[in-house]
């Protein structure tokens, strides 16, 4: 290599140092979202799971429990349709639907646009319901305070070990649809063990969006996180 300009000395090729992170653009947008939430004392939670785990049902009941006490706004990510945003609005919270088209995850820029449209109240809780997918959303920081992974008992005890990136990125794992346990060969204790194998710091709450069982623990957890962001 030429010592003057870094060219290879053949056919004028030059090597240029770049040293740039591929996720830098997303990380910048996520930092801006995080600053926006912090300024307003907003708790933002990124809900991630496979399709059909019960994310929207959990949100519907959470919104009902918080009615009149905690302002809630929801960003709904799906590839297509506004069905989930309509469900959330019927449950009593403000919602904006983001359709990713062929995209498999929400990124921080999509969330920034959605937040600008929602204009969430200071002190509120913003739930970001990610696209149902246990792979890609693990990589994209949206500026949330925490990722909450939801797994239903029908999905199998070893889900965390099969999708370690997501369960490693999550702070809390909600184990949903516990009313189905009598019909299944799923031991929630083994599911927890699988989660702890990939993320020793992972917390767990077993709940049931249909009956409300376990919701007091979930609401307490949200309360604790709200106090943390309020400083």
């Amino acid at each position, binding site marked *: 290599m030429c010592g003057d300009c870094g060219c*290879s000395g053949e*056919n*004028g*090729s*030059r*090597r*240029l*140092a*770049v*040293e*740039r*992170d*591929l*996720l830098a*653009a997303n990380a910048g947008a996520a930092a801006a979202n995080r600053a926006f939430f912090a300024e307003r004392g907003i708790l933002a939670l990124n809900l991630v799971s496979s399709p059909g785990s019960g994310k929207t049902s959990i949100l519907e009941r959470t919104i009902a429990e918080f009615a009149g006490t905690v302002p809630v706004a929801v960003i709904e990510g799906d590839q297509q349709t506004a069905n989930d945003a309509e469900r959330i609005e019927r449950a009593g919270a403000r919602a904006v639907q983001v359709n990713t088209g*062929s*995209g*498999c*995850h929400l*990124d921080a820029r999509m969330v920034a646009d959605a937040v600008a449209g929602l204009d969430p109240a200071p002190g509120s809780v913003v739930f970001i319901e990610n696209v149902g997918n246990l*792979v*890609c959303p*693990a*990589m*994209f920081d949206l500026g949330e305070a925490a990722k909450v992974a939801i797994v239903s008992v029908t999905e199998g005890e070893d889900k965390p*070990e099969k999708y*370690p*990136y997501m369960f*490693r990125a999550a702070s809390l794992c909600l184990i949903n649809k516990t009313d189905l346990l009598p019909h299944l060969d799923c031991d929630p204790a083994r599911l927890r063990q699988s989660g702890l*194998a*990939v993320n*020793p710091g992972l917390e767990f709450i077993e709940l049931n969006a249909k009956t409300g069982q376990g919701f007091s623990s979930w609401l307490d957890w949200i309360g604790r996180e709200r106090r943390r962001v309020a400083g």
Partner: protein
Amino acid sequence: MHELSLACEIVDLACETAAREGAAAVETIELEVGLLSGVMADALVFGFEAACRGTIAEDARIELEPVPGRGECRACGRVFSLDAFLVKCPGCGAAGVEVSGGDVLRIKAITVR
């Protein structure tokens, strides 16, 4: 499929850097890809082939440098390199391994003409 979004970032970063330097074309792109980054190298290269079309990086070759993670056994303290999350300590066989690093996704350098 997140590899396609990342491939678009590779094309953007490479083309921006090359254009700033007045280069006509990008010949190679050196990438560091962590083995615990959640990215499949083959899918990244496949995505790149689609994303680079019509740009000055169209004929560029991707050079991948895999970067392992670091494991530290909580039982015996042994330190070793990792290419997966779920491992047992190669020394004492314990399951409690502290994992760090291996998540880098970075363009290190490009060659242009």
